[in-house]
């Protein structure tokens, strides 16, 4: 294997346009040399932007590195080039499963099974996911539209219009302060933090590509609830939520104050 890698590396050095970058990066990936594999694959993908297998290889390496967002980008590029790429559908199914989006995972697996109908492992995976989704659906109350989740302890006793559930978490999805609960009172803080971890990096990348400068806030309307997402520090995210009766402009001011409190708290604990 090592000889093969050396041989392929030499070949690529002699001819940078060679497609040998594909087996070379794959070999490096299998050996666990992920950074080197990524360098080789990314250069190849840049040289051959229309080569779906190059983007697929980048995606698999990024997935192995735990860089789900980058893997998502690469597999999306694959589907842009080859909508029926089996590996991309499998990969996106895996990423969706990892982020908890089981419905999307089933969707990609179903497409993969259509493309590879004899692959019994895909059928089994779909069945397991559907069972898991059914179990989850039974374990929680059905969603009731326009219900505002319960308030954190600090807000108890205040009028409803003054309650501000707030959650501070880091970029790795770990809760640092605050609580957010579902409508039925079950603590959902960890799940929310996990769902939104990485948003800041994605927003940074998108605003950079769009030449929009530094992102400051994300305001979200969701039925009777409004959310505001901020980044008090480069390492943290803050989610504030209020009922729809609080206008967006006022929620932005509330979020401003929450950001200041979060920054102060972060300074105090250092």
């Amino acid at each position, binding site marked *: 294997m090592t000889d093969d890698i050396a041989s392929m590396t030499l070949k690529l050095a002699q001819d940078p346009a060679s497609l040998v970058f594909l087996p070379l990066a794959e070999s490096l990936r299998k050996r666990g040399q992920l950074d080197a594999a990524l360098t080789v694959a990314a250069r190849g993908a840049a040289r051959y932007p229309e080569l779906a297998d190059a983007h697929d290889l980048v995606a698999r390496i990024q997935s192995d590195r735990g860089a789900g*967002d980058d893997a*998502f*980008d690469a597999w*999306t590029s694959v*589907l*842009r080039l080859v909508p029926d790429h089996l590996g991309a559908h499998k990969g996106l199914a895996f990423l*969706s499963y990892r*982020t*908890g*989006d089981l419905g*999307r995972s089933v*969707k990609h697996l179903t497409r993969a099974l259509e493309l590879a109908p004899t692959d019994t492992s895909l059928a089994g995976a779909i069945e397991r996911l559907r069972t898991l989704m059914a179990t989850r659906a039974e374990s*929680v*109350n059905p*969603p*009731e*539209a*326009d*219900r*505002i*989740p319960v308030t954190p302890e600090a807000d108890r006793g205040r009028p409803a219009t003054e309650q501000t559930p707030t959650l501070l978490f880091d970029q790795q999805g770990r809760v640092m302060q605050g609580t*957010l*609960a*579902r*409508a*039925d009172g079950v603590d*959902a803080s960890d*799940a*929310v933090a996990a*769902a*939104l971890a*990485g*948003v800041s990096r*994605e*927003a940074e*990348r*998108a*605003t950079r*590509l*769009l*030449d*929009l*400068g*530094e*992102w*400051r*806030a*994300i*305001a*979200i*309307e*969701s*039925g*009777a*609830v409004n*959310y505001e997402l901020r980044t008090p520090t480069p390492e943290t995210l803050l989610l504030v*939520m209020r009922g729809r009766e609080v206008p967006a402009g006022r929620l932005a001011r509330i979020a401003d104050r929450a950001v200041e409190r979060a920054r102060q708290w972060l300074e105090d604990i250092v």
Partner: protein
Amino acid sequence: MTSREQTVLDDVTRIGGVRSALLVSADDGLVVAESSVEGQHTEAAAAFAARLAQRLTVLTRTLQTPPMSMLLLQASGGQLFITQGGEGLLFVAITSNDVNIGEVRLALLDAAGRIA
């Protein structure tokens, strides 16, 4: 892309300060239709919008609140609006910071209603 979709997008970009309006596939972040008044990296906006919408679907499902109806990302050099655009579609608008937020918001909701 139909002429109706293009007309709807063109109506949005007629609003002062709107640089681009896109119709995006929510599943894979691909641009379905677009109307841009100046050069924009619209593929990046589409991919980001789809990813963000997917994350927010998890958020709203987790908190048992209704799905996202409108999102506004504010940055130092502009803004990005996202709204649901019918079955499996997202409407995305990229604007400058001096745009009338309320006008763009209503235009996108109206556009979504016309496409759905």
